[in-house]
């Protein structure tokens, strides 16, 4: 997969030799923003539904607050009762911004089927998910100074676990830890202007991009290599989970992951996001977390 590297080199060679100019692209029709729904239910946690309006591609980037779909009616039906979700928000100290969403009060439960109804701008969107996937615990975690995936070489962790037999499973990595701004983000920090942490530590969740399927490994021991997002020093601690996603959510986040590759690499076919919600873009699904494992970094990041 390192083909990408020399393709980039050849591309750079071309760009160096060639002429470059900015061009205006006129899209055929004026783009009308679409509602984007993003919600993953976790057993034992209150539901959160992120609703935003997509922006025209060539517009300036806007904050989550500006994108937020205000005035939507969001309800969740758990088989016995319907709960109306209310607008709420959290403050992301690291990026110095508010992230709004709709929040419920009833904890999601394993084994239940949930129906989501969103009414916005005169249109109603519905979706359903059942939290039925097995909880799969981590057997072993190992630090690795270098492994390779489609994005190149990384440092990270290797999770080992035994796949839940008899069902199609989709796994991803989660790491929670306290950070301060001395631990730089691998990709993002250079474009973040403000620091709202006031030198204090903040809590951050790091989700693995890659979805691991149990195809040809049903019931067998599996290994998951995950890149970590933030710098670390020897002795830093983190809490690691294994998430088991439902199939729809796995497909959506796989598309997201693949799309990033296609954005970064012009030689990769573009990825169209497929919605799991009729009439709009988005995902409504569920994930079951493993028990937490405390991980201590054995060395500084390379």
């Amino acid at each position, binding site marked *: *997969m*390192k*083909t*990408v*590297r*020399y393709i980039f*080199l*050849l591309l750079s060679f*071309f760009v160096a030799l*060639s*002429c*470059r*100019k*900015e*061009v*205006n692209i006129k*899209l*055929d029709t004026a*783009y009308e923003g679409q509602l*984007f729904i993003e919600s993953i239910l976790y057993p034992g946690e209150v539901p*959160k539904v*992120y609703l935003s309006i*997509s*922006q*025209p*591609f060539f*517009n*300036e*980037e806007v904050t*989550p607050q500006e*994108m937020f779909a205000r005035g939507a009616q969001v309800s969740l039906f758990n088989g016995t009762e319907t709960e109306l979700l209310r607008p709420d928000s959290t403050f992301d100290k690291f990026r110095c911004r508010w*992230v709004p*969403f709709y929040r419920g009060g009833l904890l999601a439960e394993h084994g239940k089927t949930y129906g989501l109804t969103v009414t916005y701008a005169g249109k109603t969107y519905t979706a359903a998910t059942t939290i039925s996937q097995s909880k799969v615990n981590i057997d072993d975690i190992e630090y690795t100074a*270098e492994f*390779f995936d489609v994005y*190149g*070489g990384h440092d990270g962790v290797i999770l080992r676990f035994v796949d839940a037999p008899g069902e199609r499973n989709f796994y991803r990595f989660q790491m929670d830890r306290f950070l301060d701004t001395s631990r730089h*983000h691998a*990709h993002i920090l250079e474009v973040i202007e403000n620091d709202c942490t006031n030198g204090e530590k903040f809590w*951050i*969740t*790091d*989700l693995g*991009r890659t979805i691991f399927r149990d195809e040809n490994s049903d019931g067998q021991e599996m290994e998951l290599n995950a890149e970590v*997002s*933030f710098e670390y020093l020897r002795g830093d601690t983190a809490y690691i989970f294994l998430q088991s996603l439902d199939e729809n959510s796995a497909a959506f986040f796989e598309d*997201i992951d*693949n*799309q990033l*590759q*296609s954005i970064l690499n*012009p*030689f*990769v*076919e*573009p*990825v*169209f*996001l497929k919605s799991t919600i009729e009439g709009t*873009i988005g995902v409504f699904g569920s994930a079951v977390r493993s028990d937490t494992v405390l991980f201590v970094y054995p060395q500084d990041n390379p």
Partner: protein
Amino acid sequence: MRIALFLFILLPWAGFSQNYTISGTLTDATTGEALIGANVFVISLQKGTTTNNYGFYSLTLPQTDSLGIAFTYVGYTAQFKKAYFRQNIKLDVELIPGVGLLDEVVVSGIRHDENVSHPQMGVVDIPTEKIKELPAILGEVDVLKIVQLLPGVQSGNEGTTGFFVRGGNADQNLVQLDEAIVYNPNHLFGLFSTFNTRAINNVTLIKGGFPAQYGGRLSSILDISMKEGNNKRVGVEGGIGLVTSQLTVEGPLKKEKASFILSGRRTYFDWMIKPFLSSRIQTNYSFYDLNAKVNWQLGPKDRLFLSGFQGQDDATYIEDGIEYNVMFGNSTGTLRWNHIFGQKLFLNTSFIVNEYSQNISALQDNAFSQVVSGIKDVNGKLEFQYYPNPGHSILFGVHYLDHTFRSSGKSEAQSGSDPSPGIDKNAIPVKYFDEYALYINDEIKVSQRISASLGIRMPGFYSDEVSYFKIEPRASARLTLGPTSSVKAAYTVMNQFLHLVPSSTASVPTEIWIPSTELTRPQLSTQYSLGYFKNFQDNQYEASLEVYYKDMDNQVLFKEGNQLIETLDVDPLLTYGKGWSYGAEFFLRKNIGKLSGWVSYTLSWTNQKFEELNFGNTFPFRYDRRHNLAVVGTYQLGERWSLSGTFVFSSGNVYTVPVGRIGVFHGGSLFEGNYFVYEERNNVRMNPYHRLDLSASYKKESRILGKNYTSEWVFGVYNTYSRLNPYFVFFEVEPRTGKPKAQQVSLLPIIPSITFNFKF
């Protein structure tokens, strides 16, 4: 089907008992080169034929005391011969280059009108003499660049010689040199093709109405014949340009019995750019071509040809811990034996070996990667041409092709200063596949007004995993509307057992060919075409208007989010669909006179539909271009100066642009960010492509040491008004605002060139 077979068998023997046959070869009087597609015409009977790829002709006619025959070929003085015709005659004729007085005498009596009279359609012949007159790019006239100027043919991106015919992908063109397949006919970045014009005799492009002897690709056949070598005297010719130089030597091994030609070309781009590079950059780029051919006239009925070609590109770029190497090349070898049984049956037997290999490696940040792949084919062909009577010829044969594929990739971290050992070429996994085909094609003049070419080809494919057998009917017919116009129609079914793993760039040679498998089924096309053909002013002007519709099944693209990989087992990454193309092609050509050239215009639509792409909706093919215009002209300005120019215009390529962006916030740091909303694949068209190339040549003939010597200066300008044509478009995000901006990259601005050619 039974009736057609019956006709095939019966028609050749249908009573011509009082007839005799005149046969022979047409050659160039100065070099002995075979003249391909030359005309042999009996004026009194208004019957004639054309020479085959070896210059052979055969005409069976009623006996007569005096038979008048005209022999003509574009760019040569016609000859008129009379013969007592009450026995079989063998008549070899040599034509003198240049248009002479005799030509003017006989030209009015003969019909030089294959454009109108021949039943085949979608065929364009370009003799070498014509190619040489066309504008040079960087001092080199390039065959593939010329082919891109023909109707129904589109170029790829700027700086590439890849071409796309009637909506087909680049892999759907069979490019063959002396019957050997050339898998990658481009040099690096596609500025030149691998074909050295000085070593070429004839180029034929077939894009529709394929005769049955051609197969294996869906969209076109580019059939290139190498020169045989001058069998009368030793000649040397060469050219010294800014980027390349070449030298060709030819001559008799045994006068008028055996000859040879040896032609070589090399670039010195690597030497030229060295002084301009900083000391921390080490770069090297070179390519070379070598063509060689010998032929022996073993006897009056036997001839042997041995030809070979080798071309290689080698590029290295080293800078600050970065090192990449690109090496690829083609080699071919063809051994052919011609035998004439009696005077009506011509046999060609060919044994061909061709190989394509590439080796690309990169080292960056101590990460080493390498891709090695290749194809080797061993072919055997047996082909008969039978000429029972004028207006009737039957061609039949068998072709067997053994493919050996190899492909391997490596990707590893390189520790310390130890260089990676790279891929062990002897350990590369190899796969074997075989193709075969039986074919028969009957070209018959049914009446004065109607002629037809009917054929059937039965190709097959087998490997360890899967086998396929196909039947391909071929038919084309011509209805004469008057002395200067006709209507033609053609129906063709083609199969293709090989696929080129699609790469979104045509110029980077990371192309991997894969065979058909159970999942990747053979590509299949069905093409219908209809055309109106008209000649003007004693056939000085040829015009045609063709319309076509082509269906293509089992088309292959990468699934979303996938890209080139390093092994043959790519089936899981591919998705399958169909394509279809339709359009109209206008062609006006003038071959004779001080001003010659052509105008071609194509209006076409090409779409594809894949269940797993574009939400299952139809989308335009990447090279769907609505308009394609080419104007090519050469003007002979006196005896020494000639001017030529080419203007091309085409609609821009389509590509995929997102229409919106969404912000993904859900809890995960790596997911956070803006993602793209696509509504339609290939929804935006790049700016149109247009370019004007001009060249002027000054030719002078003189004598040195008692020998004739010709020198020529060629001055050329590529992209005269320095149009910044789009090569590709990428998006750059403004860091403060996050606003994406589209950046267009253009490759080749105005490029002047000067070349000195000599010949003695």
